[in-house]
């Protein structure tokens, strides 16, 4: 592996006050090398976004507790930084693309103002230079007439265009780490391809490490070499995408794969789905959290917690691997 850009060591997150707190991220560790893209996949409510927000220190300290042995960005432990020090890193060394650009963008400023502000804050260069760089960034992500986009307000753009503008904003400072939380969800195929193309470029041109969060393994496969599968706050399988596609070992990974609709010459007779739904963090079943939805579960699965076995070729937390 190349130089480690993002290192997360034993990260746990709880929501709620100490008397009634519930764990949403459970002992998660991983690292991403410079220029690499790693996918984090799981259904809604599995703790993916909580993991991302905890890494950036964006969870409110009043309602969330974050514990970790260390979260390092380019070798710097960001949890040991003061708020002011952290602000100098956020947006410059590590940036985030949020799931809903419409709510992440400020409705009362033009896109040009918002995108330029991030760059100006971290570089301190003149307004004129910022303006040029901002237009360049918009052009980079594929806008034919960047001036038109820069003078527009967020509501004047479609969801896909807003997301591309968000990517322009996140990438202006050429961050070492980019966290993209469902960046293509609910966008049509061609817009999705465009956004993935931009993420790929960032990775190859600027050696940015990318953590791509999605519920769709199909999206992750197109952009990432490695993938981590998360269920109820725990990583349950961690391997390279090709192996996971060829042979998922955790029944949850297999279930997620089977849900992806395929385009086939003949219409499929039935549609497969994982039965049931993700339990709320207050009602986690004992043992393996996936056991109640798993058709391979036996008594051991309901009693003890499978650890993320650091096996030979991949990590799988399951007693009854496929």
């Amino acid at each position: 592996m190349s130089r480690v850009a993002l290192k997360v060591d034993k990260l746990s997150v709880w929501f709620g006050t100490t008397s009634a707190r519930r764990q949403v991220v459970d002992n998660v560790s991983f690292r991403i090398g410079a220029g690499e893209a790693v996918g984090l996949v799981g259904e809604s409510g599995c703790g993916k976004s909580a993991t991302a927000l905890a890494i950036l220190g964006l969870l409110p300290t009043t309602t969330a507790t974050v514990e970790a042995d260390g979260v390092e960005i380019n070798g710097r432990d960001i949890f040991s930084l003061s708020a002011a020090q952290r602000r100098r890193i956020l947006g410059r060394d590590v940036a985030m693309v949020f799931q809903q650009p419409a709510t992440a963008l400020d409705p009362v400023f033009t896109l040009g103002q918002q995108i330029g502000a991030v760059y100006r804050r971290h570089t301190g260069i003149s307004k004129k230079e910022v303006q040029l760089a901002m237009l360049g960034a918009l052009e980079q992500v594929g806008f034919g007439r960047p001036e038109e986009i820069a003078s527009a307000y967020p509501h004047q753009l479609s969801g896909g265009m807003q997301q591309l503008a968000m990517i322009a904003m996140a990438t202006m400072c050429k961050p070492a780490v980019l966290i993209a939380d469902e960046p293509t969800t609910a966008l049509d195929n061609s817009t999705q391809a465009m956004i993935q193309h931009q993420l790929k470029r960032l990775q190859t041109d600027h050696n940015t490490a990318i953590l791509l969060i999605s519920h769709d393994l199909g999206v992750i496969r197109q952009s990432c070499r490695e993938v981590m599968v998360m269920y109820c706050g725990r990583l349950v399988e961690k391997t390279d995408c090709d192996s996971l596609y060829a042979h998922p070992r955790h029944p949850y990974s297999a279930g997620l794969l089977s849900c992806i609709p395929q385009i086939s010459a003949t219409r499929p007779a039935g549609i497969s789905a994982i039965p049931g739904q993700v339990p709320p963090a207050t009602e986690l079943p004992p043992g393996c959290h996936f056991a109640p939805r798993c058709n391979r579960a036996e008594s051991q699965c309901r009693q003890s917690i499978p650890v993320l076995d650091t096996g030979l070729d991949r990590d799988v937390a399951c007693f009854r691997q496929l």
Partner: protein
Amino acid sequence: MPTENIKAGPPLLEVRELSLSFHDPGKTGAAPAAQRLAIDRISFSITAGSTLGLVGASGAGKSSIARAIMRLVKPDAGEILFNGDNILDMAPGELKAIRRRVQLVFQNPSASLSPRRSVAQTLLEPLEHFAMGDAHYRHERVEQTLQTVGLGAEVLQRFPHQFSSGQQQRIAIARALVTDPDLLIADEAVSSLDVSVQAQILQLIQSLQQRHGIAFLFISHDLAVIRQIADQVAVMYGGQILENSPADHFFSRPAHPYSQALLAFAGQQSIAQPVERQLRLIRGRDSSHHTPACVYADGCADRMAVCQSTEPGIHQINYKNRNMTGQHCVKCHLYGSGKTHDS
């Protein structure tokens, strides 16, 4: 649905030469008060019990069609025939009767359910509005409908925020089903859901097709989703339908260059260079300068000189292979000479 029934039945819904335009209030870069053509002389039909998948990129005009059928917007021209009656000519009373039989399911369930109404209130309201049965019947009908979508009577007193997005979409579908409609219009009804929840909702839709014989106008940008449930596929671009064909034809041999591009996109497993490198503002065409060209001419890989000067007619594709039945129509100059599409 067995194919014979689909072919034999009269169209439940027939749309003829429908056009709809919006007034542009004068946004950035646009001439003020220009007419934007959202739907441009569209025709299609849906047979009772069958599913038409309407596919196209954002801004193609898919949702405008849904809104026009529900008469939430007023089309400029054309006809919308429901069982042979034009709903555009109907008096309010007649229209109300039609609305009971055509229901709509939206993309975002949390936004389409009222946060202040319990499930019981949400599902009883349509029955009360259409004065269907007495109180006893209504309660029975609500519970029966909940069962159809896979929920139990214990959810009746709960409110939308107490459900996951998948359960909310089930409630939204139940609200549409409770009046026993013949046609459901699902406008991106699974697009905002997780793949796992999406699969569960698609299973539900499949059972509604098979067990209840409900016809669907299923709008989606996702071809893989359309593949799972559509009998017929129509492809929209720039307010027009460019191809309309039985699903098996469409997915095995798409005829229009735009359909081919869409399928190539959807099928790709690794990152390829996007076809549309330059993102353009797709906001419908300015109907004040109507150019006699193919709407897809600018983006088309197979463009010929004629494509920029003449609007293509709608051509029917003939098959030599006897196994391929049903009308396959394409609006493209490539098929102008009555070519067969066989090898």
